[in-house]
């Protein structure tokens, strides 16, 4: 699975971190960092993360 975050849209709300902590995290400066090619077993939580992003900045590209 390929995950793309539009970093121009992202405003570091961190909702994705709650939904998919194995894929998304906020670094020490509070900025988003993420795994671009997570295991397919994490698809449900990544979809949840994409849903809850207030800026709708997360895209899943198979």
């Amino acid at each position, binding site marked *: 699975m390929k995950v793309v975050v539009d970093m121009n*849209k992202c*405003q*570091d*709300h*961190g*909702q994705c*971190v*709650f939904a998919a902590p194995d894929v998304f995290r*906020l670094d020490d*400066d*509070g*900025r988003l960092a993420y795994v671009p090619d997570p295991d397919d077993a994490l698809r449900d939580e990544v*979809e949840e993360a994409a*849903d*809850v992003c*207030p*800026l*709708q900045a997360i*895209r899943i590209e198979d």
Partner: protein
Amino acid sequence: MTGRIVVAGASLGGLRAAEQLRAAGWAGRITVIGDEPHPPYNRPPLSKEVLAGKASFASLAFTPKPSAADVEWRLGTRVAAARLAERTVALDDGSVLSYDSLVVATGMRPRRLRCPGPVAGRYTVRTIDDARALRAGLTRTGVRVVVVGAGFIGCEVAATAVGLGAAEVTVVDPLPLPMVGPLGELLARTLLARHQQRGVRFMLGAGVAGFEGDDRVTGVVLSDGSVLPADVVVESVGSVANTEWLDGNGLDLGDGVLTDEHLRVGGRPEVVAVGDVARFPNARYDGVPRRVEHWSLPADSAKHAAKVLVGGDVGLAPFAPLPTFWSDQHDFRLQSFGAPVLGLGDVRVLDGDPSGDVLVGYHRDGLLVGVVALGGPPAARAAARYRADLLKQPALTP
């Protein structure tokens, strides 16, 4: 499973309902009906980034999941009436649709001020069309703006108007402090100061008695008879549930549509409500049914409601979302987890200081029920650390 599920309402709740019905295994038809001509779009930026011109209107469109590709969208059409006993809805284009299940997702519309005076020059912020019109008004040179209502939307719009270079921005509200209802005095005081420091003027403890002007608003008449000159008036005085189409079915439509703990309406297993139109008891709290106008609710409620419609409630815990909301104003953000409004009687600073970044806790019976961070990303991260605790706490007793 065949047949048809009708989703009344084509905003975030309607979209997520359609997607979650597919995720829950519904293979039959899904018809989504929406009164706006636009496909579902994201509303929060309408008072902020998009109003400020920092993001385009086109950027608001949601991208539906591939599973929802075969959903039938009937946009620019309103549901005019429903007969729940017959399982039909009538649309304003004259057609009647029968359904096996119905999702109520018609949301809210802005409440309007009913006082004398011209209508032109008065705006609300709920739809793309609203925001387009307001942006055109706010970007005129030397514009004087009066925002009626010092809630989150009003304060966001005021901040955006200052950022756009409006000549004067004044917020009017009958309450003594902005956002005091949901946040309490401690934060409301510092928010007032922060807005004032950034150029917003406040007329608090003041009501609106009318509008001056012939064809167009030129001033706002306050309850004491004084007049605020205004070229643009923004009305952000709450919202009204779009439930008139459900009249005549014996439902409790006192404030939105009352649901049970599984979001079902009127004791009917085939009718559910999602999003801010649903007045539901949150099993996490005191069992009192409330409407919730947070952005996170449509997705949370759609997920639960879709499971209930497709699989029933056997083995399904009652709907118990952890509320969360944010608000961006000027250069600061408010980030909330839990239910601060249930703990307004016992408000404590958990970290920081109200003059800077601050984290505030709201308690009921000594138990933390909500946290709000005000400031930059570190404050928001501090709030997030309490989220797990809030999720773990036992349900509040009524």
